[in-house]
Each structure stands twice: as structure tokens, then as C-alpha cells.
């Protein structure tokens, strides 16, 4: 199947990825090829087959409700590109 540029632009917008015109075209072609390959799955009869999202046997893994200290403020903020008043900072959402 072949994706349109508009479809690529739509998913790129959802993925918060800015693409150059050259990238859009290249990804359009590559995605189309990969989807073609993935389309082989359509040939498999799966109607009676349950999905496997995890290979682990179903059982609960829980921890006790006991708090422990986490990161210090310094550790929490050290990798952040921009902070102020011990908070992370970003620009607002514009229309």
C-alpha cells in the first residue's frame, strides 16, 4: 500500500516531529515499503487466535505501600534544559 504525503504529515503532526520536504518524501516511500511487508500478516488466519501482548504468565506483581525518598531537587532538575523557581519551564500552547 502507498501512503500519501498528507498521511505522513498527519502522523508526523501527532508524533510532534517536524519533517523537511525531503524527509516527508523519503519516509513516505520507506513507510509504504514497510507497510507492504507488514501486510504479509493479512494472509495469516488469526480469527481464533488470542493476542499475545506479553509472554509472561498472568500473575500480579505488587509492592507494599511504603514511601521512600526520591530524587533531591538538584538531581531532579540537573538534566533539565530550562528551569526556574525549582520548576521545569516550557513555552505556552498557542493556537
Amino acid at each position, binding site marked *: 500500500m502507498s501512503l500519501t504525503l498528507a498521511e505522513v504529515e498527519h502522523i508526523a503532526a*501527532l508524533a*510532534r516531529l517536524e519533517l523537511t520536504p525531503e524527509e516527508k518524501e523519503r519516509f513516505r516511500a520507506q513507510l509504504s515499503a514497510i507497510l507492504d511487508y507488514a501486510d504479509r500478516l493479512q494472509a495469516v488466519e488469526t480469527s481464533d487466535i488470542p493476542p499475545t*501482548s*506479553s509472554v*509472561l504468565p*498472568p*500473575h*500480579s*506483581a*505488587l*509492592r*507494599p*505501600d*511504603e*514511601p*521512600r525518598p*526520591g*530524587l533531591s*531537587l538538584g538531581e*531532579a*532538575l540537573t538534566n533539565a534544559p530550562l528551569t*526556574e*523557581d*525549582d*520548576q*521545569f*519551564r*516550557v*513555552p*505556552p*500552547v498557542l*493556537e
Partner: protein
Amino acid sequence: MTKYEAVIGLETHIQLNTTSKIFCVCKADSWNDPPNTNICPVCTGLPGVLPVLNQRVVEKALLLAVAMHAEIQPESYFDRKNYFYPDLPKGYQITQYDRPIALGGWLDVPVPASPAGGAYIRRVGIAKLHMEEDAGKTRNAGHLRQIDFNRCGVPLIEMVTNPDLRTAAEAAQYLTRLRQLLRWIGVSEADMEKGHLRCDANVSIRPAGSQVLNPKTEIKNVNAIDAVREAIEKEFERQVREVEAGHRIEAWTLDWDEEAQVLRKMRSKETEADYRYFREPDLLPVCLTQAQIDAAAQEMPERPLDRRARFMETYQLPEYDAEILTAERQLSDFFEAAATAYGDEPKKVSNWMMNEVLRMLNEQGLTAGELRLQPAHLAEIIQLVDDGAVNAATGKALLAKVQQSGRSPAQVVADEGLARVSDDSAIRAVVEAVLSESPKEVESYRAGKVTLIGWFVGQVMRRMGGKADPALARSILEELLR
């Protein structure tokens, strides 16, 4: 003119009162803490770290499911809800999507009488109940936005009702009863001001009696019960106006502006979403055995409305009393224990509770569970008054003294010599002293102003520290004044 009814469904987010967060060991309650002080690699989405589910969250979810009469699912799953927002550090929220911990259920909501009609019960169906993590908080600061991640990962239960509510008042009543229930079973502090209980409302209208479901709007960010009532009322009226004017209702998302008391349409971009849900591969399913489910059912206390009905039935309390005494679980436990200890006349215990105990709780900012005054103490005090061992005023004072000291009423009476004096000679001596010191009043009385008898009794009582038997004092006074 067409008469319209509202069709309302509520989506509530309930913050569980666990000690730690849902998927990490950070302290859950940050109400009094500075920004970004209760965070760790897990709840701030640092690379490589993994969520681990808090056992207490499952237990509380289970208890709430039982309280709502919901069908508990032996196997439930966590999913990722993917979207970008700066207060969502992983870029996805861990929630339960198509296999939640409980489905179905209901809450019966008594709706009081109003000018529109008599009292009735509205049964509100529950569609589903699931566990999820909370997001952080952002706020505007100048031309930039600040992010505090303390709230990230605080455990929430999302509970969605069916569109069973018909008026804004019913919606408000539902929230009131839900809040009562949440506190009753101890799963949440349910303080709406602190965001422990949040509510979105879906509202549509239709001609009264019709069964159709019309396009609905969603009202977000309402954080007080009165505001929910107000916002739904306004939206109902707006939809009626629109339909009357021949317009279609569009599926808007509306934001409640608490200060301006108006609804504002949210920008469509903020609501557009394809969350691309899929199973959270970092967590195992939640598997509940029948034994665990049964244990939760066992743990479930009598529900508040059931207890209210029983108080009216068993103790012959008026609805008004029963309602107040079952507002809060520990208060109702207190009443019941006191009434049992006292024996007969539960209404008398109710009166003491409603007048004296509740006043004490209000004045001291306590809950019934925090009192040093025990239910048996209250019964004992009422009994002391009944027996004439102390007078009513002393009885009330005793409540405060017991609460303050933690000693039993009998002990306080003994220690402080509060027992009522019914010894004729002791009272007679005081009466004689009062009369000799008040010649003018004695003269007036004898001249016919017999209403002064109350004043004389008061003088005697004051001198005896309130311990005198007032009836005996009066008869001695009358005798000597003759």
C-alpha cells in the same frame, strides 16, 4: 412549548489516600510540599525506569468496587494512553482501558423534596471503574509555563456513570453521596478543593419523556459541588435556548470558569486526540482470586444509606437525626455505641449527639474518631443526669472535662466534687446566708414580687457551684420566705 429534560452522566476522578504513589515509592500527598520535591525517576519519566504497582491501590479500588455493587474482574490490565502534554512526563498515561478492574454497579441517591416535587431515590448506574495515574500540574508564569511533577503518579480511580441523571440537583446529590461513601469506606479524603474528587459532566437535553440520546457537551474542570450544579444548570439552559432557536448542539468541550461563573468552549486542538491505546508492557495484569474478592466484600462496612435507614427503623430516629448521625461513619459508630451502652431512649442519645457532641467536634475541629470522649462516657453522663446525680448543666460541662482529661465521667465527678448536693441542711445553710445578705430582694418578694424566686435559686446555685438540687433549693427558699 416543549418541556425538556437534561440527560447527564458524570465522570469522576477520585484520588486515593495511599501513602505512596501508584507506581513508585514517592510520597503521594504533596499538598503542603514545595514543587518537585516528591518525585523520582519513575514518576518523572526518566529513561529506563519501570513502574511497579502499589498493592494498597488495588485494595482500595477493590473496596470501592464492592461499595458500588460493581462486578469485579478477576483479571484486569493496564494500558498506555499516548499523548503529549508537558505535565505528562512519559508522554503517556498508564491507565486501564478495555479491561478495567470493575464494570457495572450503581449508587442510590436520595433526592430531597423541592418545589418541583417530592423526595425520591435516583439509582445511578456505573459503567466502569478503573485505576490510573495522575498527571502533574502546569501553571502560567509570565510568558512561560512552569511544571510541578509532584502530582505525577498519584493514584486515581476513574468512575464513569451511565447517563442516568436528569437534573443538576441530582448531579449535585450524586457527588454529595459519593463523597460521603468515599470517606465512609476510607479510600479517599474526597476533598474537592484539594482535587481529591474531580468531576467532568456530560450534558445533553431531550423533550421530557423521550428516550433518544442527543449530542452532548462535556464540562471540564469543575471542582466544587455547587459549581457542578451551577455549570450543568447553565449548560442545560443554553442547550434549551439553542434548540428552541433551531440550532444543533455541537459536541463541544466546555471549560468552567469558576471566577466568572461561565462556561467557555475549549479550543478544538486541545481536545483532538487519538490516544493509540495499547497494553502497558511494563506491568503485569492485576489478578484477583475469589478469596481476595470475598475478603473485600467481608471488609465492606454497612453503607451510609443502609445505616441511615436502620437508625430510623431500629432506633426510631427521625430522618433528620438519622441523616446527620450517618453523615460520617465514625460519628454514626459513636452514636450507635453510645445508644447501645445507654440502653433505652436512643432519641435522648441522639439529642445529646446533635446538640453537644457535634458542637464540640465543630469547635475543636475534630472528627468523632479523634475524640477522647468515648461513647460509653456519653452514655454514663446521660445516665448521671437521669439519676439526678448531676444536673443537666453539669452533665454538659462533664462532656468537655472528659474530653479534655480523658478521665471517666464518674472519676471527674469524684475528683472535682461535682455531685449534686441534695442534703437539706447544706442547702438550708446557704439559703439562710443568701436571704440574710439580700434584705431588699426579700422585702420585694414578700411584697408580692414572687418572680424573684428564680433570682434566689440562681444565687444559691452559684454559691454551690451548680451542684445544688434546684428543686430542693426552691422549696427551702419558698419555705423560709413565707
